[in-house]
């Protein structure tokens, strides 16, 4: 397992907090501080970015392969994600899934995979576009424990992990009343889950 202090990784954090999701922003700050020990970290605070919704046109596969046809801030995010060693999806858990703010960016990441199909464990998925794919960490924030929402969230991250081809993935749930020490502990657990320890 790589020690975060001993290796230089490039991490991208997609912060899907909505206005008023202060806990998510706090987690983002803590996460960023931890990751800064290990290299470069870019945090995108998505609610402050003008990013159009996916048109469902498949232009990023056919017309301008590898790049979305819409020229906005998402292009920079997609490029960073394509070459990142670690991708973190940070979101308030909304109906068990991601917030709109996070999802508006994820919908436009199909440019980073190929249109062609392959089978993974007997199920059909799209092929990877890049040889190197960063590990994936999904962190969901809930007001309080909620078994059903947590199960849906963990399943969603696991499904994304099949489709996005990370070498490893992990999920973590943080509650509004977790104090900072608990948040740090949970973030470290999530990083250990993708083979990164922080000592």
């Amino acid at each position, binding site marked *: 397992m790589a020690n975060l202090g001993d290796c230089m990784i490039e991490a991208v954090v997609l912060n899907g907090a909505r206005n008023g999701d202060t806990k998510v922003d706090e987690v983002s700050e803590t996460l960023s501080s931890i990751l800064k020990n290990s290299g470069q970290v870019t945090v995108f605070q998505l609610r402050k970015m003008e990013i159009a919704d996916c048109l*469902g046109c*498949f232009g990023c596969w056919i017309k301008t392969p590898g790049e979305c046809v819409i020229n906005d801030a998402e292009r920079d995010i997609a490029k960073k994600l*394509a070459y990142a060693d670690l991708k973190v999806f940070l979101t308030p858990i909304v*109906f068990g*899934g991601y917030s709109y703010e996070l*999802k508006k960016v994820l919908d436009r*990441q199909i440019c980073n995979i190929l249109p062609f199909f392959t089978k993974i464990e007997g*199920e059909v998925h799209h092929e990877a576009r890049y040889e190197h794919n960063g590990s994936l960490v999904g962190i969901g924030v809930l007001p309080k424990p909620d078994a059903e929402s947590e199960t849906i969230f963990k399943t969603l991250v696991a499904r994304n992990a099949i*489709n996005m081809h990370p070498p490893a993935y992990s999920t973590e749930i943080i509650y509004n009343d977790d104090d900072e020490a608990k948040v740090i502990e949970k973030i470290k657990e999530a990083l250990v889950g993708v083979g990164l320890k922080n000592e």
Partner: protein
Amino acid sequence: MNETNRALLLVGSPRGSKSTSKALGTYLLDKLRSGGFETADLHIQTSMRSEESQARLLELVGAGDLLVLAFPLYIDSLPATVIEALELLAKQRKSIAPSKTQRLAVIVNNGFPEATQNSTALAICKRFAVETGIEWAGGLGLGGGGPIEGKPLEDAGFVARNVRKSLDMAARDLLEGKAVSEEATKLMAKPLIPKWLYLIAANYGWKKQAKACGTQDKLYDQKSST
């Protein structure tokens, strides 16, 4: 006649009227209308563009007895704008309690041959219903919807026979005030064509479309790392 008499179709595909989501939802809505329901439909992406159209969406949803949400699977979940609309509806329902019992039925379609890949999206929709006090009337998931190509289901031929049958059953269930039956769900989940044929056709289809755009040699392009 059942007390539920107003059905609202919410189409959640960015492709709007050309989408398979619209075709699936419209077929069901037509059956509901034939069964005596009043019907209306809205395109979510268009409705979310302005405060005025959002207000219209909230108003129509508030007036509906049965909400039918139809959308394509995006990244194992709902398209972002559909989530945005559900967030808006949930926020409104927190401040203004709904005056009547409402039901939600969902139709998801995806481009993979396996209908099971819709499960997480359906779970999210069900969770939305639970959190907003809407009665869950069931979900239908279609895999490998490509051959429908957004055509009205009546014109989609033999390949869509199970889809039509499933929606016929679902309409009967919903008209009787029941949730969509397991039989209808299973029928919708049946592959339209064999998996091996779907894969060959889909992979060939991408190459053909690329050729038409003159990008056949660029399909594997990568962004520069600098």
